[in-house]
């Protein structure tokens, strides 16, 4: 299996551990690396996650049950992760929040869609922030009410 989930610790401090997830979250994924080193604060970097399938969603939601006493912060969530969070409830619990995520923006100049890393704080009233690149204002390339739905989810 080429794309099996790999979890690496990228930061380890007295009250905080940061993990980088690489590959796909599916029925075979286990999160022992995270549950075995529980800290007050856990940062999960999704930057290199390529897929979460339906069974992976279930595994993730079950995993969250085991880390209820920690503060969980998701960062660098790719579009594929954000769309699953929007589609299925249970990723966001009272102890979880999304710090940063990628969003699609369209560049007319290059006729291409660019993934821009945004902070959740940049989304005001459900509106995509203005992004400029090479003297061009990029256009948000998804439906705001759908794409930023995760910000309204409460645990």
């Amino acid at each position, binding site marked *: *299996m*080429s*794309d*099996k989930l790999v979890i690496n610790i990228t930061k380890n401090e007295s009250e905080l551990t940061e993990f980088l997830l690489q590959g*796909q979250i*599916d*029925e*075979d994924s286990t999160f022992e690396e995270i549950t075995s080193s529980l800290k007050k604060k856990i940062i999960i970097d999704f930057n290199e996650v*390529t*897929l979460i*399938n*339906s*069974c992976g*969603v*279930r595994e993730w*939601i079950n995993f969250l049950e085991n880390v209820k006493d920690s503060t969980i912060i998701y960062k660098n969530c*790719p*579009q*594929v992760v954000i769309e*699953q969070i929007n*589609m*299925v*409830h*249970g990723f966001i619990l009272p102890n979880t929040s999304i710090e940063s995520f990628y969003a*699609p923006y*369209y560049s007319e100049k290059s*006729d*291409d*869609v*660019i*993934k821009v890393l945004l902070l959740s704080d940049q989304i005001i009233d459900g509106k995509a922030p203005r992004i400029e690149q090479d003297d061009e204002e990029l256009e948000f*390339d*998804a*439906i705001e009410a*759908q794409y930023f739905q995760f910000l309204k989810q409460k645990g």
Partner: protein
Amino acid sequence: MKLFLSQKTNELYPTLKERLEKNFQVVASRIDASILIEEINSFSKEEPINETIIISNKSDLDNILFLNSVNINHLIGASPCLEIELERVIRKIQNNNLFGIEKYLNEDAFIHSTEIIHSKDTPEEIDKLLSKFNYEDVFSSPKDNLRIVLNELIMNAFFHQTHLIDKNRKNSVFVSSEESVSVKLAMDSSTIAILVKDNIGSINKENVLSSIKRGFVERRPRVEGPGAGLGLMMVFENINQLHINNKKDQFCEFVGIIDISKRYKNFKERITSFHYFEEE
């Protein structure tokens, strides 16, 4: 094959009749028609006709609830590709030529395929297949959407085997080469198409629609059971058209279509179509 377009359909889609008249016989009375083309808001359950094709501008959730409440095999989401999709579906009904991927594509299409016999090979086989195409004319990441759809459909094909006793998705499932799961990925200038074929043919429309509805309504994985009960909803949400072609007790094809566009927004705004065909 005689088509009848309801008054409301003609009002809302004024170019449709003229386009269909070039290739099909469009009749003035619904009694003479073998296919009724109806707009979702004016559909009446009271006057059934052999085949009804619904055109809908409602949300995917509304359409799935609708399909769960009526015995309709075809619902087309209103889109710029409406006329092409409608013509292809009518031809499929007319010719009773249900199977294969070619009918959804133009002549310039490239098709790649693979056969999978071990469920745990699925991610690797999907990546190999996806790498055979160049996606420069498509929004930035169709591979992500295709990966989800292929993964869910292939895993269903392995784990819905009727003789399988333990359907826990963590298990490995091997099948013989005669029972292999057949996967095709194709692209032309306007369409990406995927086809996943099992050798079971035990699918029924009501179960598929009920499973998609469950995903939409509950939006949570099943706590118990072999699958999470979200897969078909994820498939439906990551494509523009879903065609299910079932040859009863022999095999079933799930075909997913994505309309090629540079804009991801266009892809997300498109209302997903649902089509169910069965050959006894």
